[in-house]
């Protein structure tokens, strides 16, 4: 049997073919399966079920267990509203950051259950990444964006304390994910270079990210970071977090691999709202601009849109597998 190419790349080996992965969350997987979104996001068995069904259909080389961005903030006391067909949102921030018990609080056990089921269902060398919120984004979701960003200017020590408290809370979640056989994927969308400049990224986002990567490494697990949007203003700082895999949108992929990380991405998600020709062209373009060496997994730059046509996700994988490849 051919070794999983994404697993090979993560282990530092040359893959036998170009690894490819359409990345999707519960919203897309549930919509595709006709399962009510709230059901998939509140029941670990159903979450694993819809994610695995989409994975089997598309045939990617890794799986991301991702429900939505509100999981930890909700567990801290934020009011979260669900809608029938779009990801839930924080209607009222928690107003405080408190330490979570991943085995008990909120929907964290749901995610962990899904992670364990997905891990058990898939070949051992296929990476199962499990998404958790990065400390800066968790602080934003728990306290409110305006409040945290204003604190960043008006009371920097208080802003730093809030983000570090979020990081300390997430350490236990990292360990729980690793115990289920998952690779922690630290998603920090609000720490994008579209939002934070280098000064604030270094002071606020980087210490917590580095701490969580180190927490994963202490357990013997690799760690991944996902930051969407334009990363370039802060990318050199992201490298300092020491992640093994970076799932990126607008970034310098060659610089990321030169810094020692595997890069996942390259295919913009808006092409999945166009047509098959656009998807296939985007896959070829991503492959043509791939960083040198074999530290690249051709993936969607962010999650697939909720209503993306499954046919287009299949086309992405098919096109990637048609590309010429020399191991």
């Amino acid at each position, binding site marked *: 049997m051919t070794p999983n190419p994404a697993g090979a790349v993560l282990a530092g080996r040359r893959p036998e073919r170009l690894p490819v992965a359409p990345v999707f969350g519960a919203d*897309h997987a549930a919509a595709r399966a006709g399962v009510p979104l709230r059901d998939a996001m509140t029941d670990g068995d159903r979450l694993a079920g819809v994610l695995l069904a989409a994975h089997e259909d598309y045939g990617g080389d890794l799986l991301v267990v991702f429900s939505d961005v509100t999981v930890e903030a909700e567990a801290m006391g934020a009011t979260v509203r669900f809608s029938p067909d*779009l*990801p839930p949102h924080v209607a009222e921030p928690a107003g405080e950051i408190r330490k979570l018990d991943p085995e008990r609080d909120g929907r964290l056990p749901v995610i962990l259950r899904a992670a364990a089921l997905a891990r058990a269902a898939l070949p051992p060398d296929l990476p199962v990444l499990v998404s958790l919120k990065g400390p800066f984004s968790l602080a934003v979701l728990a306290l409110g964006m305006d409040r945290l*960003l204003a604190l960043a200017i008006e009371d920097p020590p208080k802003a730093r304390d809030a983000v570090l408290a979020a990081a300390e809370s997430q350490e236990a979640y990292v360990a729980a994910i690793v115990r289920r056989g998952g690779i922690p994927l630290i998603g920090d969308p609000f720490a994008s270079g579209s939002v934070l400049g280098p000064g604030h990224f270094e002071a606020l986002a980087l210490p917590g990210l580095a701490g969580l990567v180190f927490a994963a490494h202490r357990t013997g697990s690799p760690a991944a970071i996902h930051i*969407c949007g334009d990363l370039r203003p802060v990318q050199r700082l992201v490298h300092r977090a020491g992640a093994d895999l970076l799932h990126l949108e607008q970034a310098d992929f060659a610089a990321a691999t030169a810094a020692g990380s595997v890069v996942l991405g390259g295919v913009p998600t808006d092409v999945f709202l166009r047509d098959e020709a656009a998807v296939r062209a985007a896959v070829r373009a991503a492959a043509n601009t791939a960083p040198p060496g074999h530290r690249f997994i051709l993936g969607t730059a962010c999650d697939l*849109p*909720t209503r993306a046509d499954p046919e287009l996700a299949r086309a992405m994988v098919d096109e990637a597998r048609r590309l010429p490849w020399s191991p």
Partner: protein
Amino acid sequence: MDAPPPVLEDLARSVLELDREGAVRAAGEALLAGVPPETAITAGLAEGMRRVGERFAAKVYFVPEVLVAGRIFYAAMEVLAPHVARQPDAAGTMVCAVVEGDFHDIGKNIVKLMVEAAGFRVVDLGKNVPAERILEAVERERADLVGLSTLMTPTLDRMARTVKILKERTSAAVLVGGAPVDRAFAAKIGADGTAPDAAGAVALAREFAGRRRR
């Protein structure tokens, strides 16, 4: 030609340097010096926001700085606004909203602030706004422009639907923006334009409002 009163520069610099106390103090000093409040707003505070926009476009300032500059702009406006005899003629009217399903309004708020500072009347519908409510506001306000924002890929299709409805039913120019939006996507869904940042959005707003008034 008389040199502008130094207090206007104080206002602009206070906004640019994120000095809230300085901006509020300069607003009061402008009134005491007999500077018309309209002038203090446009040549002082708005000039400061314009410079903030320049720094944002140059990636010297980022979102936290722009948000705090906006708070300072409005704090000083509270001193000046009661003394404005009449509203200056607006450069145009823009309805802005985050499309249905998305609750991330930070980009929309920055664009609103910058477009308002550039002299437009802005009707802010907030976040998670259905297309029908946006259409209703555009017709009611006789808007020249609509600014639609989304940060998330799952709501790109809602943005497309909103643009379609607005283009079918109104003559307003529709500008779209947000992290996952690029020119190709804007063109595909029939929007009139998109910009990568708030300064670009102001330039587009001026361009389209100017075209409509010709």
